[in-house]
């Protein structure tokens, strides 16, 4: 009986939403910059999952193309972001996101 259930698009979308929410919460809770970056990656993966689910639902390959680009841009973003984190943490070793509060008004 259970085997007869085929996961529909809705299942994938729900999974993606939960993954996205977990990523957002993690971004707000964690202080280590690198872990915050990883939470961003979680969110991007949720989005990718959504795109692919819709791609197969509507028979349109454009969704997968979008995932391709998201992947590439995420890679570039990680490169630059880690470069920035390295620059900052070189000056102040052991800094967390809370320590970078120069914009305080």
């Amino acid at each position, binding site marked *: 009986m259970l085997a007869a259930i085929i996961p529909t698009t809705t299942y994938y979308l729900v999974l993606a939403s939960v993954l996205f929410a977990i990523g*957002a919460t993690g971004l*707000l809770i964690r*202080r280590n910059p690198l872990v915050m970056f990883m939470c961003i990656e979680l969110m991007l993966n949720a989005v990718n999952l959504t795109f692919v689910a819709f791609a197969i639902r509507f028979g349109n390959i454009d969704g997968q193309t979008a995932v391709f680009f998201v992947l590439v841009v995420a890679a570039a973003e990680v490169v630059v972001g880690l470069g920035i984190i390295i620059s900052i943490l070189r000056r102040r070793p052991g800094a967390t*996101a*809370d320590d*970078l*509060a120069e*914009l*305080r*008004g």
Partner: protein
Amino acid sequence: MLDVIWLIPAFPLAGFLTILLFGRRLGEPLAGFVAAGAVLGSFIVSAGAYFDLLSLDEQDRQHIETLFSWVPVSSLQIDMAFLADPLSITMCLFVTGIAFLIHLFAIGYMHGDPKFSKFFLYLNLFVLSMTLLVLGENLLVTFLGWEGVGTCSYFLISFWHHRDSAATAGKKAFITNRIGDWGFMLAMFIGFEAVGSVSYGALNGAAEAGALSQNSATAIAALLFVGAVGKSAQFPLYLWLPDAMEGPTPVSALIHAATMVTAGVFLMTRMNPMIAAAAPEVATTIAWVGALTALFAATIAVAQTDIKKVLAYSTVSQLGYMFLAVGSGAYVAAIFHMVTHAFFKALMFLGSGSVIHGMHDEQDMRKMGALRKFMPITAVTFLIGWLAIAGVPPFAGFWSKDEILLFALVKSPVLYVIGLVTAVLTAFYMTRQIIMVFFGEAKWTSHANADEAAHGEEALASTAHGEFKPHESQPIMLFPLVVLAGLSIAGGLIQLPSFSFIPDNWQHKLESWLHPVVEVGEASIKDSSAYDNKELLALLAIACAGIGIAIGVAIYAKHLAKPVEPKILAEGWKYDRGVSAFMGGPGRKAFEAIAWFDKAIVDGAVNGVAKLVTGSAGEVRKAQTGNVRNYAGIVGVGVVILLVWFVVGRGVL
């Protein structure tokens, strides 16, 4: 010539600008002649306008020349326009004529003064303002001139500003005038609110047609009278005029005898339909203020020792007569007296200037005497002025004063008695003055010794034997005296009364000339008992003059009795001191309270708003923590809110 009546103020304006730019280069005496020439130009244009008006029918004698639209603000439309009618042209004629004569006098009087051209700058500015005042077609142009003459009065009174007393007197004049101006402004506002315009045509027309409520007319007339009280030095705002004698004598002659102070009377006459439409108490108040001021000032003049102060208080007194006339409905008599007073008062001021000049700036009458031998022309002309002001026929003053007394009797016998008593006092103090100055023994020998010690070389140079001697003035100063003396003699001809021995076509010339302007307000006395007995009343007036002269001669010339000059009169009934005490004491407290209110409450409100803004900004600033996670959290919350809006708003949930 009526089309170019704007030249009447334009000439003095051109003179003012010329002297402003080139005054120092023109120097003495050319600057003076430029100024005098400008005023002469105005006089010629006024004369031309006069003849043009004469050629028109009596009903049509009114020409309005609009230069440009001055204040075009939706419902408030005020033009820079001039009104040429019998009243304004009469004023222009004698203002510019006497101003011209005084300019000539001043060229001689101000000789050697380092600020010679500046003096004529201000004089021309004054003539400009005065002509604007009288030619104005609406209250605002008149007000422009009104303020202008006040300002020039301030400049000219404090002309020798290094003298503290002169500077103070200038400020006093300006501030006291300002109090009157407040009344003028309020009257303008009420007039606009009631009629929608401030032009004389609209206001007087509405008053005449009965379109104006009596309350509005009363308010406007009363407030304009307040303005007149300030400008024409009536009680209680007269105290600037005696102090204004600090200015050079030509200034006293021009501004404080002949022209500026008559502006109040002119205004009242111009607005006579308004006074007629107002409550009768307004006219009664005007008459009583005038009469009491006349009496009050005459009593003070009796005890003054400065030659100019006597004339100053005399001016206040004669202005009181004019307001008495206005209040009694005798507008023609008021203008008549204004004109004759201008002649003989200017004459006497210029004469006193000649005396002061000849006595090397001595102004105390107790140090003069027997000057008729040394200054014959000055003495003769001054005596003519004396006879005119005392009210001795056939000199000008008698006819005008007699007419005022006639109307006063019709208005109220008490006013008439006050007028008669004032006439006696007038004759008395003027006789006292001429005896002290021109007759009797020479009291300036003691002054001569002091003068010699002080001036040394200068006194030696003026006399052959090292003795001080007063001298007659130069011809340019004597010429105006002679002209004004002639006018003082013949001035009465413009308005001769209906006495039996005067041919018909010589009677009441001024009245028929001014008729279209004053017909609404002029009181009609032809049916009263006073009118029937007017010859008798005239004889009574002559008798009063005679009594005054006789008492003066008896006390000061023949020394039959001791002079009575109580100190309180010399101090002007201590009125000046009272005002200073009030302003310094309770007045000051009131002003400080108002200043406190402004600082604490008005400024406090404004500053409070600013503090509120900075305070709240300081609180809001705390949201900027600088922490990235906080910002990210708030962004996330914003996303959630948007989602909620979408989900709920589109009915998904």
